[in-house]
Every structure is written in C-alpha cells, then in structure tokens.
C-alpha cells in the first residue's frame, strides 16, 4: 500500500468515528431544541395536515396519540435513536412521507447550490487574490480590502434581496426565485459566493504574498526561471495549500448560508425544507435534515482533508 493510501485510510477511519459522534450530538441537540420551542407541537402538526380552519382539539389529540407526543421526551428520543441505528429516519409528521425520500430529493438541489456557491467564490477570489497578492499594499489591494469588508458585513439574506431587486426585478436578467433551470442558479450562487469570496480572496492574497516573498522563490529565480514560470511552477502550488484548507473552514458558513439563501430564493433544497419543518413542528423532518446537514459537513471536510494531502505531500510519509 502506498503511504498516500495508508494516510487516506487513517483519515477515513477518523472521520467515520467523527460522523457517528456528530450524528448523536446533532440528534440530541435538535431534539432538545424542538422540545424547547413554545406552543403545542401536536396542534401545529394537525394544522399542517388539515389546515387551520379544518382542525379542532380532537384532531390535535389524535395526532398526539398517533405520534407518541404524549410520551416522556426521553422515551421519544430513544425511539428516534433506535430507528436511526437501523438507518430509519422515520416519516414526516405532517405529510406522512418517508423522511429519507424527502431528503434524498432535496439534497441534490442543496449540493448543486453549494457547488455553485463555491465555484462562484473561487472564480472571484482566485484572480482577485492572486493579482492583489502580487502587489500587496497597492491601490487594488486596498480597494478590494474595503469591498471585502463591506461584503462580509452584509448578511446573506440582505445581499440576496438586494441582488434580486437589482438583477431580477429591475434588470430582469435572472428569475426571482424557485428552480426551473440553470438561470435560477445564478443569483443564489452569487449571494453565497460573494460572501465566501469576501474572506477567501484575502486568504488567497496573503498566501500568494507570502509565497512571493519566500526564500525559495528568490532561489528559483537565480536558477533562470522567469517571473511567470516561477509563479506557475512554484508559487501557486505553495499558495494553494492554505487556500484549500480555508475552504474547509468556510464549510460551516456555507451550510448555514445554504439554509438561509434557500429560504430567500425558495430553492427546493434541504435548508428550505428544514425551515419549513421547524415552523410546522415536523419533528422527524427536522431531526432528519439536521442530521444530514451534519453528516454532509463531515463528508465535505473529509474531501478537503484528502485534497490537502494531495497538494501538500509533507507528512504523507509519517
């Protein structure tokens, strides 16, 4: 077995254990938070099923008995965890459909949006960061710093609404919301991507600036490499190590952002479903989506780990 494969396996094992711990914690915390919400869950679920004007105290009581909401909280949680151990996420309290199937249909859309956001952020952050990193302290550097602070300071939902007002309502370049085709992907990706790029362009800039002032860069120049060749052969690869690692740090922002931006753009993804489920007190759906979000976070982090190992061979032998 190559050292790389061995290290990759070790990473995989660590992340596997981490995934189990995350599943437990997310399950317990999200359950506790659903319990802590004010109001009668059975009443809200019944309203979700039959409509507010069609339900009464009797139907709420029926729901309470059916879903076991009358049982102690600890018993309910134990039931959920037991089912989870058999890979059963249960059924939606409101729609009666399988939670796993619902999530299966939505997760793809969320991943599409997340990928769109990361690609957008890289399309912005890489060129901007490289150009400013080559001339740190220059006019462009200071300008992009100001724009970065501005964009980072705006919450994603506000930026999303501004983009919709300008590009969808006024200029009519892109659709306002929903998902009918690729053009729907542009504004939500841009909303999230700008937020991500606001920080990552500075990370790219710092990484490039540091690599440009490294001793090994000067030594490469003495060997007769042109400035351009030194950049492509030496500087960019070294600079990419912290940049890729930082994408891992941004995953938390990304997942949080997906939930919010999906709601703003009525995107048919898992984040939108989560918000809906919380309002409808659809406990099984909330538990299921929170769990999948947590596990997606672990899985994406694993990808970042492997990518880092691919770029930076140091420590592979160890």
């Amino acid at each position, binding site marked *: 077995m190559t050292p790389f494969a061995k290290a990759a396996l070790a990473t995989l094992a660590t992340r596997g254990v981490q995934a189990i711990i995350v599943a437990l914690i997310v399950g317990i915390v999200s359950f506790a938070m659903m319990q802590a919400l004010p109001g009668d869950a059975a009443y809200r679920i019944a309203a979700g099923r039959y409509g507010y004007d069609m339900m009464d105290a009797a139907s709420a009581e029926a729901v309470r008995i059916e879903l076991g909401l009358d049982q102690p909280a600890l018993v309910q949680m134990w039931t959920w965890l037991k089912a989870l151990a058999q890979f059963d996420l249960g059924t939606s309290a409101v729609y009666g459909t399988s939670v796993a199937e619902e999530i299966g249909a939505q997760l793809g859309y969320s991943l599409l949006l997340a990928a769109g956001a990361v690609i957008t952020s890289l399309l912005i952050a890489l060129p901007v960061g490289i150009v400013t990193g080559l001339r740190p302290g220059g006019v462009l550097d200071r300008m992009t710093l100001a724009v970065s602070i501005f964009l980072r300071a705006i919450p994603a939902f506000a930026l999303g609404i501004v983009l919709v007002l300008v590009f969808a309502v006024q200029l009519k370049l892109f659709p306002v919301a929903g998902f009918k085709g690729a053009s729907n992907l542009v504004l939500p990706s841009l909303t999230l991507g700008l937020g991500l790029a606001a920080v990552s362009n500075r990370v790219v800039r710092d990484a490039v600036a540091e690599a440009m002032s490294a001793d090994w860069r000067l*030594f490469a120049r*003495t060997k007769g490499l042109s400035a351009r060749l030194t950049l492509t052969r030496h500087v960019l690869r070294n600079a990419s190590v912290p940049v890729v690692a930082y994408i891992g740090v941004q995953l938390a922002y990304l997942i949080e952002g997906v939930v919010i931006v999906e709601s703003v753009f009525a995107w048919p993804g898992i984040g939108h479903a989560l918000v809906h489920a919380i309002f409808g007190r659809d406990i099984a759906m909330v538990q299921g989506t929170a769990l999948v979000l947590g596990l997606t976070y672990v899985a994406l982090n694993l990808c970042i780990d492997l990518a880092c190992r691919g770029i930076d061979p*140091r420590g592979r032998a160890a």
Partner: protein
Amino acid sequence: MSLLEVTDLAVAAGSLQLVDGVTLDVRPGEVVALVGESGSGKSLTALSVIGLLADSLRITRGSIRFDGVPVHGAGGQDMADLRGNGLAMIFQEPVSSLNPLMPIGAQVAESLIVHGRASAADAAQQAVRMLGRVGIPDPERRAHQLPAELSGGMCQRVMIAAALISRPRLLIADEPTTALDVTIQAQILDLIRDLAEEEGTAVLMITHDMGIVAEMADRVCVMYGGRVVEQGDVHDIFRQPRHPYTAMLLRTIPRLDHPPKQELFAIPGNVPSPRNWPQGCRFKTRCDRATAQCDATPALSEGAHRVACFHPLSEGMT
C-alpha cells in the same frame, strides 16, 4: 581579463542610498571574499550582480559587466539567460531556500530544464549524479524526497548541487554557512572549494567571518557603509591591513595563542544605519585615526592592494 567587473555601483531604496560606489572584480576561477558587517551592502551588491534586487530597490549608478558584456540595463531576457547558466547563487538559509513541496531532485534539475539544456529524463539523471557529487548518500532514493526530510546541512548541499549543475562560471555564495553548525560549516566550505576548483568556477563568497576568508579566499574585498574600503590579495590583507576598519576586523578573530580569559576585542560603537551615514569617510565615527580631513570622501586607491583612507596603516603599525 575579469569575469565580473563591478564599477562604482550604487543602489538606492527611494532616496535612501544603500550601496554607494562599490568597485570590485572577480577573475575566472578565483575565490573573492566580500566582507563586511550586516548592513554594509554586501548582499545587495550580490543581488545587483544577478539582477534580482527587490522591486523597491534601484541601481542608480555604476556598471556591472559579466565576461565583458554589460548586464545591468541589458534587457531582462539576457539576465534570465545568464542566471542558472553562466551565473548561479546560493543563499544563507538552506532549508527555506528550497521549495517545500517539490522533490529535491526536481529542484536540482530545474535550471537545466528551463534553459533547454537537457530533456526532463536526462536532467533527472544528471541531478542524481550531482546529488552524489555534493555528498548526498543514496542520491537515487533521496532525489524523490522533500526538503523537510533532510537536515540543514544536507539542504545546503542540495542548493549547491542545484547551483552548480548548470556549470556556472561564477558562483555567488551569500553567507552559505551562517545558518549551519560549526562542524558542518567546514564540510560545506570544503565542498564549495573542491567543486569550484574541479569545474574552474569562480566564487564570490559573501561573509562576515574572517576565518572563512582566511580559509577560502584568494582575494578580499572589505565593505563598510555601502562602500568598498579595502581590496587586495588575501595574504597582503592579513599580513598588512591598510584600512583601520580591516585591521580592527582582524583583531576581532579570537586566537588560540592569546592568554585565556582575556576579553575579546570588539570594534567600538555601532554600524551606523544608512539613514545616519556620516559625511565623508563613513568609518570616521569609530576610527582612532580620524582627522578633519576625513570629512571628505576618500577615493579607492589604484593598484593591486587598494584602500580608501586618508590615513592608511603602513608596514609595522599593527
């Protein structure tokens, strides 16, 4: 004829003069030591020669000729042709001067490849041979290792291999042993001297260590405050230093034949920073022979043993 001829070189950062009239020459195959304290301008002189001064620095005066051809001001392309071809350089920090992500074999082979002097496969083979010549054990295997897997002394050998694989006519060595253990220093100096002799490579050795000068150099060039103050054959300078600064430098070498526990000699005062260089002779503030005449700038005398001083020491005065 001289291989390298630097005449009245001046380097400035903005309005701040850092090197102010350096004249020196290196003949084919000889070792010239460029001596001076930190801030005397010796490294800047070397970087001017190889054409890799930082963007903030400018050559404001003087000429540099390599093999009779002016290099300063000649287009950037000519300079890149010369680097890693006729001219090579090694640095003080061997570990940080190697790209941490690139196997050492590839870094040694690089100058051959960028100058189109060997195919990739041929260059890799030559690199392994060169690694063997600089004393890397098991070069075949080591060529695939990263700098982090090698000690500092080994990294300096790798840098020497990368510089000498192109068979340069002049090697600039900027304090190549300062960062190394004393026991390793001697090995590295021997290696540089032996390889340079075998290949007929001239060496411009930058150092502040008079012990290294005595061991390595054919001729010496002493710098102070951005200027050359004395230049001549190593025997002449050690037997009869003419500039008071050179004489004091020589007195700073601890000697085994001195009585024990005797206080070590230190040159009184501090090196003035370029902002506070005195008018006229820059050493006058620390010199015991200074007079009113020293308010004028002394010119470097002509001949084999040259000195820039109004009151040089003569035979029998040290």
